[in-house]
């Protein structure tokens, strides 16, 4: 029985369970004189029946789906003569994928050694048995769950409470997905990074001044010193982010102040949504804009001034990234500025301060923690931004602070190393995960600090 059929059968069974339990509850109520003698409405008895039928069966099915592949594969390997199975883990996984491909018919069986063909046959047989087995077990669990649930039914049964408890747990499970996602990120990045640091020492990675992972793909150069020094990447990220913040913070802050304190409602109603457009434009569009319009413009401008500007300058990428972050900064600034109590503004104006004096001497100092938090969030965003730099910044890791030269960033390297052919054991691929770990830690740190500051700030004026 195929998976789709199994799921459809299960769904039908669950629906039947609902109706059966529902009518059973009515039958129970009848001799007592109507459903008001039941503890809960028949609806809840029906739902309870469906849950007893479906929930255990679905748990069994999920467990099966998670573990059937490794179980079947290890059975296949165990069934082969010892000399037919390669020794190393990498070779073994290659062997297994060949077997799987032969079994599914993706590779012609004729070209393969006999051991592989035999294994493929055994694999197919095991899978067939497995599918039959899971169908029987799942449906068996479903039916016995239903029978057990219905047998316990009585007019006193607190069906509503039972159903609601299950619902509550389901809600909690959904809420906890955020935790599992974070956990998944940490685990996936951490494990691959640890493997990377086995090949390349942590200190070389953190303090090395040279980054050239492409050359290290050759076996004789694996882990060769200097090839995985991430300092140029950090510098490049820092340079581009700094340019972006230099654009976004003053512009975002000043436009938030101007639109909040000075502009008439007409201008505000036009300008605010117009600036919000910048937040809605996908980053890939900014990347295209930076690479094809801004970068050539800056290069030509530089040439006419007698400066040599790289065609993939950090300036172009940073500038466009800054434009992208403007609405982010401006809406955060708007939030924290409106959180400053009106009484402070009135107090300053009543002393004869002009509006700009009030803004500069009272509102901004009062809102400073919030603004700092906002800038940190913006910085974290700039550091993690990927598409603009992938398209408009360079690939070459150069240790420079000159914004007119091409630099590369952490995110660019993650993408470059992982797009295309991947071998999971080469340090080149693993390096991407190590960079990912660094990126995750840095942005996490920035976010935690920023959110803490902003939270404290809100408490101050609430």
């Amino acid at each position: 029985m195929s998976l789709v059929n199994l799921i459809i059968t299960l769904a039908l069974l669950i629906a039947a369970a609902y109706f059966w339990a529902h009518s059973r509850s009515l039958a129970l109520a009848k001799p007592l004189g109507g459903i008001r003698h039941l503890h809960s409405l028949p609806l809840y008895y029906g739902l309870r029946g469906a849950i007893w039928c479906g929930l255990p069966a679905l748990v069994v099915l999920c467990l099966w789906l998670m573990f059937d592949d490794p179980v079947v594969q290890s059975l296949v390997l165990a069934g082969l003569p010892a000399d037919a199975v390669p020794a190393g883990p990498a070779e073994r996984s290659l062997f297994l994928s060949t077997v799987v491909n032969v079994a599914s018919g993706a590779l012609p069986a004729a070209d393969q050694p006999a051991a592989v063909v035999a294994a493929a046959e055994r694999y197919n047989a095991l899978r067939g048995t497995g599918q039959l087995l899971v169908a029987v077990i799942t449906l068996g669990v479903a039916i016995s769950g239903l029978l057990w649930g219905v047998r316990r039914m009585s007019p006193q049964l607190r069906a509503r409470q039972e159903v609601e408890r299950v619902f509550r747990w389901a809600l909690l499970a959904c809420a906890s997905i955020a935790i599992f996602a974070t956990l998944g990120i940490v685990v996936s990045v951490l494990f691959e990074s640890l493997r990377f640091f086995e090949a390349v020492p942590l200190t070389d990675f953190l303090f090395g001044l040279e980054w050239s992972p492409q050359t290290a793909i050759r076996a004789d150069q694996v882990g060769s010193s200097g090839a995985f020094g991430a300092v140029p990447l950090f510098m490049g990220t820092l340079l581009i982010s700094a340019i972006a913040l230099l654009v976004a913070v003053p512009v975002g802050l000043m436009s938030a102040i101007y639109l909040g304190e000075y502009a008439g409602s007409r201008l505000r109603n036009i300008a605010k949504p117009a600036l919000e457009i910048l937040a809605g434009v996908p980053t890939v569009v900014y990347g295209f804009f930076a690479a094809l319009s801004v970068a050539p413009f800056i290069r030509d401008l530089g040439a006419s001034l007698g400066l040599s500007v790289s065609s993939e300058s950090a300036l172009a990428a940073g500038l466009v990234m800054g434009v992208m972050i403007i609405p982010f900064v401006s809406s955060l600034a708007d939030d924290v500025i409106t959180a400053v109590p009106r009484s402070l503004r009135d107090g300053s104006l009543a002393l004869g301060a002009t509006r700009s004096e009030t803004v500069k001497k009272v509102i901004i100092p009062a809102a400073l923690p919030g603004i700092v938090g906002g800038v940190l969030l913006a910085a974290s965003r700039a550091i993690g931004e990927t598409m603009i730099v992938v398209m408009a910044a360079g690939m070459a890791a150069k240790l420079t602070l000159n914004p007119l030269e091409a630099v590369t960033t952490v995110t660019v390297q993650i993408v470059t190393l992982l797009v295309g052919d991947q071998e999971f054991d080469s340090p080149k691929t693993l390096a991407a995960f190590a960079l990912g770990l660094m990126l995750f830690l840095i942005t996490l740190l920035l976010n935690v600090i920023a959110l803490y500051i902003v939270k404290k700030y809100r408490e101050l004026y609430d």
Partner: protein
Amino acid sequence: MTTAALDSASAAAAPGRHRVTELSELLTQRTTGKPFVDAAKMRTRNVNVYYGEKQAIFDVGLDIGRNQVIAMIGPSGCGKSTFLRALNRMNDTVVGCRVTGEFLLDDEDIYAPKMDPVALRARVGMVFQKPNPFPKSIYDNVAYGAKLHGLASRRIELDEVVEGSLRKAGLWEEVKDRLVQPGTGLSGGQQQRLCIARAIAINPEVILMDEPCSALDPIATARVEELIAELAENYTIAIVTHSMQQAARVSHRTAYFHLGKLIEVNDTQMVFTSPQHELTEAYITGRFG
């Protein structure tokens, strides 16, 4: 309105001339008592204030006597705070608020186009309902206005201004050892006195107080009331208050507002002992409000 017109209007309110026929006088006649005085620091006539479509103040005329305390009382929403905020153009900062009528500060029209609200507010200071010290040090709070207006250029002058103002506000002894600490760390009553010190640091001619004690406990209230009495020697003070007892304690004259109209103005003693208007009497005897 010219000064001559003002004079005739104030004459109209003089005792014995309650019923007059001129239109401008008809508009003010509804106010019982003595809204106008001879030695006035500020004069207002025919004041109307609107919030968008809604009118909050109806045709109010009132004089504020020099070096006197005038209390404005009345039930919630009667417009007394709105009227007070019109006196230093703080209503300018409220979107949709419109003010008409005459406002004179020493014969200068404060709503004249050439009148600068910034300069005006330096002359007519304000203390608010809730103490609102800036999130700065005590010293910087008091020095704020003086620095802004360039009243003290050197540190030593500034020190003088700060100490003098804090002394006048009766706060010096309590805070002189912690001038660098944030003003927000003081108690409520101290904060309010700090705000008063901040207001007098720029030497205003008039101080407006908008229910300055409503957020304070009784002891702090007593302290601030004492302070108001002391300040009255040198300053003209207009105070809005919710408490009739406070008005009776601190003010020389009392104005009673009701639903945006100025009902009765008189010497404080008169208002509380023999109110002339029915509404005033009803309010002070506690029949509503």
